């Protein structure tokens, strides 16, 4: 008696294609497209999806989580400062107190739980796809993203006709880290001018990243390290607590905006 039920190769192929085609058709028009599946993007996605917002995360790698798998010096212990441990509680991620206000948790546990939480909340994921351009509407409002498969960027120059596709959305969230790819695309088009990194005389910057998480341009919200690039805040290292809180703050701003539009 075989362990698995019988199925043909063609059935497997049809299952993949039909389900993916159905998903892709849904992706063509969503409430929010989040570019970047790191901790801030996943957090924003999860919070929005829990409020019944239709969310698509576009991630250029085959894996989600960005730098959340490992901490400093490639060691996979993640540190989180209060009050961000409350989010670990919410996501049912076990952690230990290292000292008052500072908590540690294994990166693989925290990252996988965050991905699971986003997926379970109903977030759709399109991985191995990368952001190419923005869709613009009246008064240059961002109204979607143009994407292509990640391997396309690795094709030889001779192969040029691999056109992308455009997905429409009410809002786009830039969660692409210090690259701030969506914001930079607007800058390329002369629609925004980012100030560059702020002066280093200020030692505290994580709070500023969380508080600035929000609209950068009509239709475009920024979260995570992209906030630092967009607003010229002092550059900072990967502090995961602020990434989670930034994602939450971005989701709050996005949700308030969508709700206002709906009412």
């Amino acid at each position: 008696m075989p362990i698995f039920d019988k199925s043909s190769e063609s059935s497997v192929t049809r299952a993949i294609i039909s389900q993916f085609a159905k998903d892709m058709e849904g992706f063509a028009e969503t409430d929010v497209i989040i570019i970047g599946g790191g901790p801030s993007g996943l957090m924003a996605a999860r919070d929005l999806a829990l409020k019944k917002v239709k969310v698509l995360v576009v991630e250029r790698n085959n894996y989600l989580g960005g730098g959340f798998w490992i901490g400093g010096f490639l060691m996979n212990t993640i540190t989180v400062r209060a009050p961000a441990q409350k989010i670990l509680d919410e996501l049912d991620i076990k952690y230990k107190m290292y000292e008052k206000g500072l908590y540690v948790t294994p990166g693989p546990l925290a990252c996988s739980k965050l991905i699971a939480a986003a997926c379970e909340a109903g977030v759709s994921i399109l991985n191995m796809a990368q952001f190419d351009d923005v869709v613009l509407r009246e008064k240059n409002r961002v109204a979607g993203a143009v994407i292509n498969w990640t391997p396309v960027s690795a094709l030889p120059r001779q192969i040029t006709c691999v056109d992308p596709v455009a997905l429409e959305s009410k809002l786009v969230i830039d969660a692409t880290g210090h690259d701030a790819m969506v914001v930079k695309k607007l800058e390329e088009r002369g629609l925004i001018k980012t100030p560059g990194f702020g002066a280093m005389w200020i030692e505290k910057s994580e709070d500023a990243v969380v508080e600035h998480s929000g609209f950068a341009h009509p239709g475009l919200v920024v979260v995570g390290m992209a906030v630092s690039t967009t607003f010229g805040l002092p550059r900072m290292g990967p502090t995961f607590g602020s990434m989670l809180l930034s994602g939450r703050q971005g989701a709050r701003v996005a949700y308030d905006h969508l709700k206002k539009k709906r009412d």
Partner: protein
Amino acid sequence: MTTSRRSGTELREIDLFSSENPGGPDLGPVKSYLKSLLPSVSVKVLPPALRRIAGTRAEAIARRLAMARVKDIGAADQDFEPMFGEVEYELRTLAGKARLGGVVYDARKVAEAVVNATGQSSSLRSSAIVFTDRLISTYSRDDMRHHLRTVLCGFPSIISVPGIVEAPAKPREYYVLKQRMESEGASDLQLAELRASFRDRFIDHGDEGVVEVMKGLALQAVMYHLTLTPFCSDKNCRLFNAHWQEDLIKSQVRSKRLCVRHAAQLEALGKSPVLRWS
């Protein structure tokens, strides 16, 4: 405006506007301190000046504040179109929906925004001292760059609460060691330990010393209003304009006193708080 000695303008009231972020320092001790020096002057603690502003006025002030950001520390005047997101952020701060911090603003432009928001009285009988959680700077022609400030004396005066920690320079050894540790890839924890090892040599966020410094800075603002000369060259006097943290601690936290000359001047002003601008 007429000179004060001729008109004999008397300072009647001081309005202390609280800083914006919730949980900020209590201005009660600052009020008591000023009251002890100027008993006949009414001192009031008011809500933040740049808060609870709504409608189109809020948008105009948010835009002013967004344009007050210092984006190039080497440029005296920065004329730029603010980003949509910068105005949005300022709107959230005006509505109390975002905390302030991490951004440097041109102090003079913040003062203009305050005047715009509060419609400050044109009478010199009233002095406005605005505490803020914004970091403020002014441009110095000496070295052609912006410098963080703890206080901008004027009408109104602006006092930056985080500026108390960030503006005066920390000991040179701290910066040298920090730079070396960062270049060696030190962790946040190691840098926090370094900071802790300099505990007595600079004021940190939330330290008790912050309130003592706020008293001294408020007095400097009042002295500017009364005499146009707010500062003293004596490092043991509360009116000393400290550019180093160790001097700030010495003048405001350890000494807590005025020099003989300013003690006598304050005693006279306490009896008769008339503006002496000549």
